[in-house]
């Protein structure tokens, strides 16, 4: 079994240092604009911050992967090119990309820098992945969170590049890169503005009994009674009414997080080359806890020991966790 790379989120320079110190093999991050899919207020890196952070990460032998993983809308391609060229100057170890035009630009202008295919590209079959590998020399694909371990194993046997899968974090329900729900309600696009449920459009209303209703734009997307746990204020985690149900229900998914710690040995045996932790929007405390837990688990498995599975439940959405699609098709 080969040693998988632990790929960890960094929303701020402090979070990146935390991830490096907690044992990340690689960190991923983005600039403070629409070129990355976590374009959230107060998050991400200025060019200066990224330069210093790369130096620190490289001193510790940690790779820095730059997420340029949104789709430039026609007329705005230059912003993405500038981010790419800047990343090359600052010495990033790889780009994580989703858009065909973006991939082509990197393949032509920065052929020496590794290209990773983002989950936002939604390449969920060997044929799609093979096409990106053939056309742009993609070195690694980040698989959508919709595949089972046995499907991942099958894909691994049919593609020429490395595989990265998510192991912990926010459990996206829609195929990433193919969801315009946020844009439908807020006018901000996940695909080309890099936002999902932008905080500026989220409002929490609390009534006298302590019930909390969550609104996105003009729409109520959920209502929590005071003893219920909450989740991210996204449309896909909300409750709605439909004729087939007698009351509001989670039409897409409950507030729940992905936690594949118990499937780690299977994923590693399936030939997964890199394990990804979601959460660039999360705090240093989250990064420290999750990264160090998975660092220990991966090292234990490599040493042939039982992995110590720290309880990460407190960090999960709605304080609930799932293995999602990875374990069984019944999730679908």
């Amino acid at each position, binding site marked *: 079994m080969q040693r998988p790379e632990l790929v960890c989120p960094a929303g701020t320079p402090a979070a990146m240092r935390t991830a490096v110190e907690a044992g990340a093999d690689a960190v991923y991050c983005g600039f403070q604009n629409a070129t990355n899919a976590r374009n959230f207020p107060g998050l991400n890196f200025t060019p200066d911050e990224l330069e210093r952070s790369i130096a620190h990460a490289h001193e510790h032998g940690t790779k820095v992967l730059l997420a340029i993983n949104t*789709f*430039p*809308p*026609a*007329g*705005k*391609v230059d912003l993405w090119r500038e981010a790419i060229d800047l990343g090359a100057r600052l010495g990033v170890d790889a780009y994580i990309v989703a*858009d*065909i*035009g*973006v991939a*082509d630009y990197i393949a032509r202008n920065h052929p020496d820098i590794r290209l990773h295919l983002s989950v936002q590209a*939604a*390449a*969920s*079959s060997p*044929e*799609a992945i093979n*096409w*990106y590998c053939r056309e742009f020399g993609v070195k690694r694909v980040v698989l959508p969170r*919709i*595949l089972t371990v046995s499907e991942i194993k099958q894909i691994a046997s049919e593609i020429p590049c490395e595989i990265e899968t998510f192991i912990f974090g926010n459990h996206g*329900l*829609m*195929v990433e*890169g*193919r*969801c*315009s*729900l946020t*844009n*439908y*309600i807020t*006018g901000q696009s996940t*695909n*080309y503005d890099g936002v999902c449920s932008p905080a500026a459009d989220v409002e929490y209303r609390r009534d006298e009994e302590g019930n909390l209703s969550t609104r996105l*734009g*003009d*729409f*109520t*997307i*959920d*209502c929590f009674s005071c003893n219920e746990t909450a989740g991210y204020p996204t*449309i896909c985690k909300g*409750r*709605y*009414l*439909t*004729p*087939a*149900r007698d009351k*509001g229900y989670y*039409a*897409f*998914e409950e507030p729940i997080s992905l936690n594949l710690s118990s499937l780690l040995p299977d994923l590693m045996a399936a030939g997964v080359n890199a394990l990804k932790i979601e959460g660039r929007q999360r705090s240093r405390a989250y990064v420290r806890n999750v990264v160090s837990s998975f660092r220990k688990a991966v090292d234990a498995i490599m040493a042939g020991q039982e992995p110590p599975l720290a309880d990460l439940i407190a960090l999960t959405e709605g304080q609930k966790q799932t293995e999602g*699609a990875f374990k069984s*098709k*019944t*999730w*679908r």
Partner: protein
Amino acid sequence: MKPNLTIGPILFHWPAEKKLEFYARIAEEAPVDTVYLGEVVCSKRSPFFEQYYEDVAERLTKAGKTVVFSSLAEIMLKRERNMMAGFCEIDSHEIEINDASALWHLDGHKFRVGPLMNAYNEETLRYLAGQGATHFAMPTELPGSSVAIMARAAQDVGASCEVQVFGRAQLALSARCYHARAHGRIKDNCQFVCELDPDGMPLRTLDGNDFLAINGIQTLSHKYINLMAELPQLREIGITHFRLVPQDVDMVAVAEIWRAALDGVIDPEEGQQRLDALNLPAAFANGFWHGQAGVRKVAVERALAGL
């Protein structure tokens, strides 16, 4: 170029008889130029209508329509991979692809790029044109300001450009079937419960507002996109194809209105009045085109000034 009015693929799981009836009427009565056929949403539904496509295509062709086959949008399972491989061998008609896996199979053959393919910019458009793309249907959420640039880029490579002007917006795809979930089932034992909702399963907010429509693994807007008021602008920026996405309404009547408006027989204002008079089951929206929330209905004077 004469504007080309198109009927997109049927997104919903209509019974075979309903689809046959629909295409019979489209062939005989609807003043449209192009009809897209095929199951885009769910591979499990495909077998129900496969045996009829040849006859339907022939009937539409005889009626003077161009027939294009549309591919599945989500390719994951072995069955779906095989379906896509077979789909890419179609040579009797043009094909429209909705997933990147098709690009592997096509390898030089001509194809159309569907609205679910994430061709968001002129660079991607040029790259795909280099791979054999001859026609681009714009992603639903792409604003008009970007579509204008896409239309120019398409002209430069000799390709045509299509915009959805009517019908629910296709907002999201998932691996999970939300129709099955609503009925306490999973995708593998769904028993095709999506057949119960020929115009999508309504989702309302907890305070009772219309919100979304579920179509199996797909999530659609509740509102119907309607770009009638924007029609002159669409023409001006070089859009050549105008797509009506089938809803469970009188699509022949809808097509007649659009045809009249495209041919200049009626102005957009009258077109709008006639669409309003159909009393469709959902309100109209045009926000995406104007770079605003898709659910919005933007007044047109403001809209034109903004572009």
